[in-house]
């Protein structure tokens, strides 16, 4: 039975290579990357057999290993991977629960994560081969770690598929993912700003001591403890690891048994009243399309991710700069233009987000002009107060109010230029995105080479259009404040030209390419 599951998983993996050449290239690059990283770690671990302080190696490995185990638990939930070996897919075959659980867990050994982990674990065995007892313990621990990690990922993937089967909860995890990212970013900064030379060792030892007694780190600590002479602790931790692995196996069997008898369920639907944005905006194609865009920004988690990123990006950009020691005075000028870049850029693939629903625009003969303007109106409505209020706040930090003109000019130029480019690229070069209703972290199944090009084009394009304004602003700061007025004129003027041209070219493309846009959405 396990052999058959192995075969099935192998077949599923080889079928990945039957896709389009570019996807295969991406897959191969990913595989080589994973292989490269794990082999590098393997070499490092082999080297550690001969050099280094065993206590330090043990502590580092315990902490890193716990993180790896935690990753196997969390990543399937957050990313919401498409589980090809979902137990429910085998529900009709009538396989005894025990062999099904064993087969499904066993088949998870075939896969990039398990493969990479195995290579790394071989390295740890070499690291701790400092005697017969230690080697033996290292081997047992490695096997336990592999089993634990695989069971953890299987349990969490299945629970995720099971609990997050409804549309709303799927989107909710996406949001959790974003929040986690936000929470992690200061942690990363703290990690980088900690004086490792002074406190690092103490922190590491404290962490390793705690984690070593938890199911996540116990098995990683066992051979290290033995090698540093703490045989008693090693045996206790081995028992913890054994017990937790067995408990996981029982949990996995329970999960499989439960999933076989519980089909997916749908949560109660929420009631809305009135027409929402459609009531608030003027009647007509432009108003309706703008209202639809507003509504989607509020209801579709895929937009939430891009919108939440807009305020986060400046934080991520400024924190490292401030740590390096760039004065806050100058940093205050960064956030508003940066947010404008991302706000304009958010729209560059907007048609693809509609997926095949765009047929309604095609079948009703919606004019490109109405579609283009309706789609960018919400971004403008958000952008104008952002630029106005944001610039005032920025300049109050900066101190010199004459720069306000430049600030307004540069930001407006960037936003308008970004919207102009987006108006054209979203009709002319739509590329596949996450489908409506999928987790925002789920990757689209097809990727096109054009995607990267379009992304960089719209991104750099808006900066290039605003470049004159940026130069005048610089002159205004270093030479003569009179340049600030020129910067305002250049930014607003060039931005307006860019947005008008973009809308015009984009609407022509929309009118001509309706069926092609739909076809591209159907291919995705």
């Amino acid at each position, binding site marked *: 039975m396990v052999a058959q599951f192995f075969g099935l998983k192998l077949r599923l993996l080889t079928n990945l290579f039957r896709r389009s050449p570019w996807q295969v290239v991406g897959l191969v690059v990913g595989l080589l990357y994973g292989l490269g990283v794990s082999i590098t770690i393997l070499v490092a671990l082999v080297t550690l057999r001969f050099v280094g302080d065993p206590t330090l190696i043990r502590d580092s490995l315990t902490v890193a290993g716990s993180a790896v185990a935690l990753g196997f638990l969390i990543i399937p939930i957050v990313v919401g991977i498409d589980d090809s070996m979902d137990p429910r897919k085998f529900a009709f075959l009538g396989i005894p629960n025990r062999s099904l659980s064993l087969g499904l867990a066993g088949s998870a050994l075939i896969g990039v994560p398990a493969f990479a982990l195995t290579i790394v674990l071989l390295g740890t065995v070499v690291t701790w081969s400092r005697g017969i007892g230690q080697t033996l313990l290292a081997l047992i621990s490695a096997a336990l770690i592999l089993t634990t990690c695989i069971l953890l990922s299987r349990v969490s993937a299945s629970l995720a598929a099971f609990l997050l089967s409804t549309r709303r909860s799927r989107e909710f995890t996406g949001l959790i993912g974003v929040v986690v990212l936000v929470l992690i970013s200061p942690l990363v900064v703290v990690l980088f700003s900690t004086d490792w030379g002074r406190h690092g060792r103490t922190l590491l030892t404290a962490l390793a001591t705690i984690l070593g007694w938890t199911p996540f780190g116990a098995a990683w600590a066992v051979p290290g403890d033995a090698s540093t002479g703490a045989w008693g602790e090693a045996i206790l931790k081995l028992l913890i690891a054994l017990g937790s692995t067995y408990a996981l196996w029982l949990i996995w069997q329970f999960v499989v048994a439960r999933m076989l008898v519980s089909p997916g369920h749908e949560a109660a639907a929420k009631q809305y009243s009135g027409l*929402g944005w459609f009531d608030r905006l003027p009647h007509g194609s432009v108003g*309706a399309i703008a209202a639809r865009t507003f509504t989607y920004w509020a209801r*579709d988690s895929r937009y939430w991710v891009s919108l939440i990123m807009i305020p986060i990006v400046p934080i991520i950009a400024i924190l490292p700069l401030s740590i390096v020691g760039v004065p806050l005075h100058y940093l205050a000028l960064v956030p508003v233009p940066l947010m404008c870049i991302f706000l304009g850029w958010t729209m560059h693939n907007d048609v693809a987000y509609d997926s095949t*629903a765009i*047929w309604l625009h095609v079948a009703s*003969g919606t004019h490109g002009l109405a579609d283009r303007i309706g789609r960018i109106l919400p971004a403008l409505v958000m952008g104008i107060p952002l630029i106005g209020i944001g610039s005032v706040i920025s300049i109050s930090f900066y101190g010199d109010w004459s720069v306000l003109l430049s600030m307004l000019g540069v930001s407006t130029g960037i936003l308008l230029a970004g919207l102009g480019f987006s108006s054209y690229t979203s009709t002319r070069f739509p590329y596949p995105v996450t489908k409506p209703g999928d987790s925002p972290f789920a990757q689209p199944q097809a990727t096109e080479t054009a995607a990267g090009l379009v992304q960089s084009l719209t991104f750099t394009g808006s900066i290039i259009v605003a470049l004159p304004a940026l130069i005048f602003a610089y002159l205004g700061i270093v030479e003569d404040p009179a340049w600030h007025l020129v910067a305002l004129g250049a930014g607003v003027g060039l931005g307006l030209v860019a947005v008008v041209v973009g809308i015009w070219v984009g609407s022509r493309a929309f009118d001509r390419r*309706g069926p092609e846009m*739909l076809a591209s959405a159907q291919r995705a």
Partner: protein
Amino acid sequence: MPKKLTAPKLPDVAPPARATEQTLAENATDETTRPYVTRDALVAIETEQPLGTPVAPLPEPGIDPRPQETPGTTTPRAISEPAATAVISPAATSENVPVVVEAPTVIEARGLVKRFGHNVAVSDLDLTVRAGSFYGIVGPNGAGKTTTLSMITGLLRPSAGNVTVHGIDVWARPNEAKRVMGVLPDRLRLFDRLTGAQLLYYAGTLRGLDNDTVRSRSADLAVAFGLEDALNRLVADYSAGMTKKIALACAMIHSPRVLVLDEPFESVDPVSAVNVTEILQKYVAAGGTVVLSSHGMDLIQRVCDHVAIIVQGRVLAAGTIDEVRGSKSLEDRFVELAGGRKVAEGMEWLHNFSD
């Protein structure tokens, strides 16, 4: 409902309602276009069923009460190419044919071809739909029905050939042609993060309706399709049948001259199907034209007056239902044209149960 009326097959539309409407509403020309309408009316009167009650389906092929000379007196029309030998070709008589010819053409597809890479989905397909007809398109899976309808509605650019709708070339003047059509595509998403009410409003506004019209029509459509309670829920939370119904409502909101519906009854419950059919029949009676694709042969035979059988991207037979089906039932005729029944040989093991 009396026991004897429980339909053994698919639940049917209520022919009495339709028959009375049509016999009252229609003029002589329409009578002749659908010669069996009067017969349905007779059946309805004979069985004395209340309005709206499902009745027994049409008689089985073998015991067709219609006069047996029917196939002989009619002519099959416009077969896409002479090579399609499978088509019945009895001698034409003059009385019944002109009726079909007189009504103005509403949809005219000539030499439609669609290639996807090396696959030819639709090859040299001709289709003529006349005003006021209820036109069914049937075909096996993958025959090119959806591809054909997409090319007619301006959603898929043909590799060759042209389509005119109401005299307007769909691919030369798309915006004018699209105004005439109401479209229900198959397997395409809706803007499903909108509530039902919002989606109807959106579709109506994109079609150029003014604020008051779109609101009053949305309310009417919601009642007609039984969606009043669902209007304030997200379309994403609808069941498959409700999604189909809201999409149908969106297709009709601008009162188009032609409705092109791809699989309108798929996963729609029987009661709603009856309502939808009734709405469509009234629409046709008022002069509208409906083109729909379906796998339900009974349904096509019952509600449509014309049918085209598409197999492997070609029209193998087209004309009035009676012309196409001849003496057989539509289903038998269809199976025959689509390659016949596959005789299940070598499947004896299926009958020796493994435990």
